């Protein structure tokens, strides 16, 4: 089978706040019985409203969900294709370009970090790689010693993309990469993502709450509602012929301009 990633019956529970700290109770799962596959070279869009478990799903796939809450319970299976090293070959682009870059590190330190832990490159090789990647995402190499606060939101997201690409990953998880950006910048970042994924032959899981954005970039789309997958299929099929009530709502909520859907 050529699928890079297969998820079976994934369920994720957050511990509920309870009066006793001794027994932890789990309530309704944040992600409920989610199963899907990701094929090679494919862009899978995941759409859903805020709080429907999209980001939780993304963090679970990357295996970092327990970092901030060690008591999260995860059941089900997340299987990568053989030969995929989750730490090196799966990279994540975070939603907020402001908090996802360490304010005290220079660009070089930020972009270099994944290389330090996952490869055995020498210093010169790393520097070469960094300047290549910088150029690819449209940043000047002269800025390598600058700090993140000197950049705009869109540029910061480019840094985030550079950091994700530096290890030559096979899968990119983009967790709402454009939702924190100005509309005018969103298109630039989307185009950049589209370019790099063609160039590097990447598979991508693209998460958003905004249907047009997903429509633009993804081959297949999954609609999530309250932790469950309510609809999935080829993008144009799902959008052209929505079945679930929530999907219809999503489509009708896209603003129109002079009779054209945006």
């Amino acid at each position, binding site marked *: 089978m050529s699928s890079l990633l297969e998820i079976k019956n994934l369920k994720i529970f957050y511990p509920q706040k309870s009066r006793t700290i001794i027994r932890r109770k789990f309530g309704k799962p944040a992600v409920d019985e989610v199963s899907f596959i990701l094929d090679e070279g494919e862009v899978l869009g995941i759409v859903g409203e805020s709080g429907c478990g999209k980001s939780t799903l993304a963090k679970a796939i990357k295996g970092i969900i327990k970092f*901030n809450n060690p008591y999260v319970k995860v059941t089900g299976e997340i299987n990568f294709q053989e030969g995929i090293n989750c730490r090196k070959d799966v990279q994540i682009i975070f939603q907020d370009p402001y908090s996802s870059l360490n304010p005290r590190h220079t660009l070089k330190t930020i972009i270099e970090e994944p290389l330090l832990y996952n490869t055995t490159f020498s210093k010169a090789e790393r520097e070469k790689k960094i300047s290549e990647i910088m150029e690819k995402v449209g940043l000047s190499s002269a800025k390598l010693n600058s700090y993140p606060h000197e950049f705009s939101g869109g540029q910061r997201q480019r840094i985030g993309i550079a950091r994700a690409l530096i290890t030559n990953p096979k899968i990119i998880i983009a967790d709402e990469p454009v939702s924190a950006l100005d509309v005018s910048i969103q298109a630039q970042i989307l185009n950049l993502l589209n370019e790099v994924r063609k160039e590097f032959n990447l598979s991508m899981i693209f998460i958003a709450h905004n249907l047009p954005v997903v429509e633009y970039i993804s081959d297949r789309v999954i609609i999530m509602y309250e932790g469950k997958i309510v609809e999935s299929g080829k993008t144009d099929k799902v959008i052209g012929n929505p079945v679930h009530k929530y999907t219809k709502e999503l489509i009708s909520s896209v603003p129109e301009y002079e009779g054209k859907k945006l």
Partner: protein
Amino acid sequence: MKSNINIENNSPKSLFAKRLRKFKSFKRGYYSLIIIISLYILSWFLPVFVGRNALIVKYEGEYYFPLFNYYESSVFNQEISGEANYRLLKKQFEKETSPGFVVLPIIPYGPEENLLDELNETPPVRPSSAHWFGTDDRGRDVLSRIAYGFRISITFALIVAIFSFTVGLFTGALLGYYGGWFDIIGQRFIELWSTLPFLYLMIILSSLLSPNVFVLAVMLTLFSWMGITYYVRGEFYREKSKDYALSAYSAGASDLKIIFKHLLPNSLTPVISFAPFAVVGNISALVSLDFLGFGVPPPTPSWGQLISQGMNNISNWWLVLFPLGCVFLTLIAIVFIGESLREAFNPKGNENE
């Protein structure tokens, strides 16, 4: 190309540079910092300005440097026992007009030196041109004792601050980073430890150990590391929930790397703004212990002992005024530094710049 980069480097870039610039704009704190630091640096060369040993002696055609070497009084044909007395030697030279000279420090009295033989009246002696701040009831020069006491006080306070911040930072970092049960139990332990009555335990410990400055610093550290843990723990909780920590984790950074490379540099604000106040607290702690007689062993010059002398000789105003005045001025200067640092590191005042 090259010049382009240089131009960019000139603007204050890092947050720290920005804050430093802001700190400099608070004149009161900035000048206090300069004064305290230069006095402290000078205090390490104190024997040049204040002390019983002459800087240079020329005696019978030979040069001597008593600052660095010990000379028996017999070397200079003095009829006293022990170390040579260079003030007497100077007087001798003046009388005999012999071809020699002595260069003395500005204040030619040691902090532990008993001057009973040279004083014409019974101590305590009031301020005069010879003894600017007078002498105490054992005939020791007060100015000399205050000067050496300054060095001991600041050194002690810095050592305790460094020790207790190291311990507190590390503990707070671990509590905030790992959270959960570890945090709950750790915090309860800190709360219990904080309720130990510090002064009584210090008195008991010092009567058992008869400590020197270093042991005293370690003992005080035992009771002063807790305060900073609360702040560092809180900072760590907040910083850990930011995405940059998560992204470091997802890149494969180890816990230690995340703690020390990512979170700690972003959690230092409370440490920096609390440091001056911790120093103030430590100076006061040493003064109170010395005042009670449980601090550094006599005859080490210390401010607390001077103040307790002042209390015993309350009618001799110079024994009260000068030590208290020096403690007051030092503490207030450091408080000014702390105030300005806190203001400069205030995140709300900083962003608009």
